[in-house]
C-alpha cells in the first residue's frame, strides 16, 4: 500500500533518504537525477523557445507569427521547383521545340516525354481515362486503335490542347442528335436502326428486323456523320460503327438509349492549364500507349 507520508527517512542500507513512498514494503529511494541530465533538459527548453522565435509558430487572430527568417515550407518548395526547372530546362526546351514526329525517333526525348507524360496523365487524365488509359464506359480507351478525333500525334495533341465540346473556340465539335427525344425518329425506327448498327459489326440481330428498311433509315439520318459505309468521321468525332469497339456499349438497349437521347461527352481543353511542352509530352505518351496511328 502506498504510504504518502512525506517525512524524510534515511534508508539504512544505502544511507540515502527515501521519498516516503512505499509499495508492498518496498520504499522508493530519493535518488536525484544526474546533473548532466537536468542540464540537458534545461537546454532543451531553451532550445525549444528559440524554435518558437525562429520558425512560424504562434497562431494569431488573422494569421501566425512568421519567425525571424520568414521561413515557409511553401517558399522552400518554390525554390526547389525553380532549381528543378533549371536542371531540366534544356531538356524541356528541346522537347518544346522538337517537331512532334521526331520525338519518338530520339530515345532521350522519347524517354523524357513518356516519363513526363505519364506523370501528367496520372494527375490530369487518369480520373476519366483510368491510370493506364484503359478508359471506361463513355471514356475512350486510349490503348486501342479506335479514335473519335484521330489518333495521329498531331490529332492527339490538338484534342489535348482544345478538348472536345469544351467550350474552347478551337475545340472539337460534333453531336450525336437525340433522335428519339427530339422526335426525329419513331421508337420502332430506332429499334430497327439499333439492330442494323449491330449487324454492321457482325453482332446478332433481333429476329424480324427489316435490315433493308433500316439501311435506308441509316442512309437518311446517320450517314451524314458516320459515313455511307458507317466507318465514322474524325472531323465530327463520329465513331466507326463497323469495328468491334464501342464507347458506350453495343447491346441493343444501349444503342437505343444512344439514339433516343444522343451523346456528347466532354473533354476539357488543357491548353488553359498546361504549357505546350507538357501537352506535347502527353501527346507522345498517349500515342505510345499503342493505339496511336
Amino acid at each position, binding site marked *: 500500500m502506498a504510504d504518502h507520508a512525506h517525512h524524510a527517512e534515511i534508508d*539504512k*542500507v544505502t544511507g540515502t533518504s527515501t521519498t516516503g513512498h512505499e509499495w*508492498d*514494503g518496498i520504499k522508493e529511494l530519493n535518488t536525484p537525477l544526474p546533473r548532466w541530465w537536468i542540464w540537458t533538459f534545461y537546454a532543451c527548453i531553451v532550445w525549444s523557445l528559440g524554435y518558437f522565435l525562429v520558425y512560424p509558430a504562434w497562431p494569431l487572430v488573422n494569421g501566425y507569427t512568421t519567425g525571424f527568417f520568414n521561413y515557409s515550407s511553401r517558399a522552400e518548395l518554390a525554390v526547389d521547383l525553380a532549381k528543378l526547372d533549371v536542371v531540366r530546362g534544356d531538356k524541356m526546351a528541346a522537347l518544346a521545340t522538337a517537331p512532334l514526329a521526331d520525338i*519518338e*525517333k530520339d*530515345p532521350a526525348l*522519347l*524517354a523524357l516525354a*513518356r516519363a513526363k507524360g505519364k506523370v501528367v496523365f496520372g494527375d490530369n487524365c487518369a480520373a476519366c481515362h*483510368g*491510370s*493506364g*488509359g*484503359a478508359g471506361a464506359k463513355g471514356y475512350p*480507351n486510349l*490503348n*486501342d*486503335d*479506335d479514335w473519335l478525333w484521330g489518333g495521329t500525334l498531331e490529332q492527339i495533341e490538338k484534342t489535348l490542347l482544345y478538348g472536345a465540346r469544351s467550350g474552347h473556340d478551337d475545340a472539337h465539335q460534333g453531336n450525336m442528335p437525340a433522335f428519339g427525344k427530339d422526335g426525329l425518329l419513331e421508337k420502332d425506327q430506332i429499334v430497327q436502326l439499333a439492330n442494323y448498327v449491330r449487324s454492321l459489326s457482325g453482332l446478332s440481330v433481333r429476329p424480324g428486323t427489316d435490315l433493308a428498311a433500316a439501311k435506308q433509315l441509316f442512309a437518311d439520318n446517320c450517314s451524314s456523320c458516320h459515313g455511307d459505309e458507317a466507318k465514322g468521321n474524325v472531323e465530327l468525332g463520329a465513331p*466507326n460503327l463497323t*469495328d*468491334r*469497339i464501342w464507347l458506350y456499349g453495343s447491346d441493343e438497349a444501349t444503342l437505343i438509349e444512344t439514339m433516343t437521347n444522343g451523346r456528347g461527352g466532354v473533354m476539357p481543353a488543357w491548353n488553359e492549364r498546361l504549357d505546350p511542352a507538357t501537352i506535347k509530352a502527353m501527346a507522345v505518351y498517349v500515342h*505510345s*500507349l*499503342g*493505339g496511336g496511328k
Partner: protein
Amino acid sequence: MNKPLRDTDLVPDDDGGPLYAAGKKIYPQRVSGSFRRIKWILMAVCLGIYYFLPFVRWNRGLGAPDQAVLIDLANNRFYFFFIELWPQEIYYFTGLLIVAAITLFLMNALGGRVWCGYLCPQTVWTDLFFAVERLVEGDRRERMRKAEEGWSLQRGSELVLKHSIWLMIAWWTGGAWVLYFADAPTLIKDLVTFQAPMVAYIWIGILTFTTYTLAGFMREQVCVYMCPWPRIQAALTDEWALNVTYKYDRGEQRTSLKKAAQARALGEQVGDCVDCNQCVAVCPTGIDIRNGPQLDCIQCGLCIDACDNVMTKIGRPTRLIGYDNDINIHRRMEGKPEIFKPLRARTVVYSALIAGIGAIMLYALLNRSLLDLNVLHDRNPVAVRLSDGSIRNGYTIRFLNKRGFDRVIAVDVSGPPNAVIHIVGADSIVPDRPMIILARDATTELRVLVDSRPSSEEDLAPSTPVAFHVTDIGLGEVASAKDVFVKP
C-alpha cells in the same frame, strides 16, 4: 501489513563487488616474439591494402572509371578489378557476406578468436595507436609513472604530440575511406582545394572521430562490452578449437625462480611459471590468462611471446602459454600424447560450404550475362482489342547493356498465334523485327506492343506464354525473357 525488513536482509553478497566501477586504465608493455612479428606483418598488410587500394588503377576502356576498386554510388555501380556489378546483382554481396561469416566460423573452429587477435580493425588500429603511445610516452612503467606524476611541460607536449599523431592517423583513415567512393586522385585534389562534396568532408569527420575514440580511448572496452562476436563465438566453439591457453599442467605450482631451482635440485616436481606477471603486463585487455579462458581475451598471442621470452631466459622449454586446448592438458596430465584434430565434422562442413558457395558465386560471375531484359506486363488495361479484332498486349521492357559500348539489338517475339511485335520509337529495315540501339553500360526502358491475330477466338487461350528474344546484331549475343499474353 508487510513484514518489516531486517537490515541483514539487504546486505549484498560481497563477492560481486560494486555494480559500477570506473574503468581501469591498461598500460600494455612492449613485447617481441613470433606472434608480435605476425601481428606487425598482418597490420602492415591490412593497413597497406586499406590505405592504398584506391590508388590502384584498372583499365576498363573509354568512359569507364579506371579505379580498381570503386563504389560508384552516383551511377549505381560497383567495380572490383575485372568485376563490375549492377544494383540488381547485389546478391553477390549476400554470397560474399555468407562466405565471410562461414570463414569466421571456420577460423573459430580451428584457432578460436584469430579474427579478434589479428585481423579485426579494432585490434589493428588499437595496436597501431598503442605503438604511437609507446613511442611518445615510453613503455609501460614510464607511462604508469607519468600518469601518477601529474602535469609538467614535458608531459603536456608529449600528450599533444601523441594526440596529434593519433588524430592524423584517424584523419587519414577517414580520408582513405571516402576514396573508395570516387576517383581517388581527383577527389584528393578536390579535398585539398575545398571543392569536394560536403558529404566527403562529413564522412572523413565521422571516421576521424570514430577511429580516434575507438582506438585511442575505448580500446579493449569495445571488445569486452560492445562487440557481439565474443558472445557468438563462445556459443560456436568446441573443445577442440585451439585457444591461447595457459598450460596449468606445466605451470603449476607457481614458485619463484630460486625456489623452483631448489626444489628441482631435490628432485621435486614444480611448475614452470615463475609468477613474473609478464603475461599480464603485455596483455592489451589487462587480464591474466592464467585464470583460464575468458571473454576478455582477444587471443592476440602477445602473452605467448612474453612468456616464451621468460622461459628462454630461465632455460625452460617455451610455450608454457600457447595455442592449446583443455583436452590436451588433461591428456598430458594422464600421461597420454597430445592430439590435434583440425579435421572435424564442423571444419569439414564449413570448408565444404565455403567451397560450395564460392564455386556457385564464381560460376555465376563467369556466366553473368552482359545483355539482359526484364519484362513488365501492362496492368491497366491487361489486354486491348483492336478494331480489326486482333488482340494487343502492352509490355514495358527494360533492356540492360552491361558492355562498355553501344550496340544494336533486334527483338523478336514468339508464343501467341501470328504474333507481331512493335516497339515505340524503334527503327527497322526488316518489317516486324524492330531494332534499337542500346546505350553502353546503361538500362534502356522501352514500350513494346505485341499483337496477335488468332484465326478464331478458340485459337487463343485466355493466357498464352510469350517469349521475347533479344539478339545483338553485331556480336550475336542473345537473351530471352518470358511473360504471358492474355485475352481481354
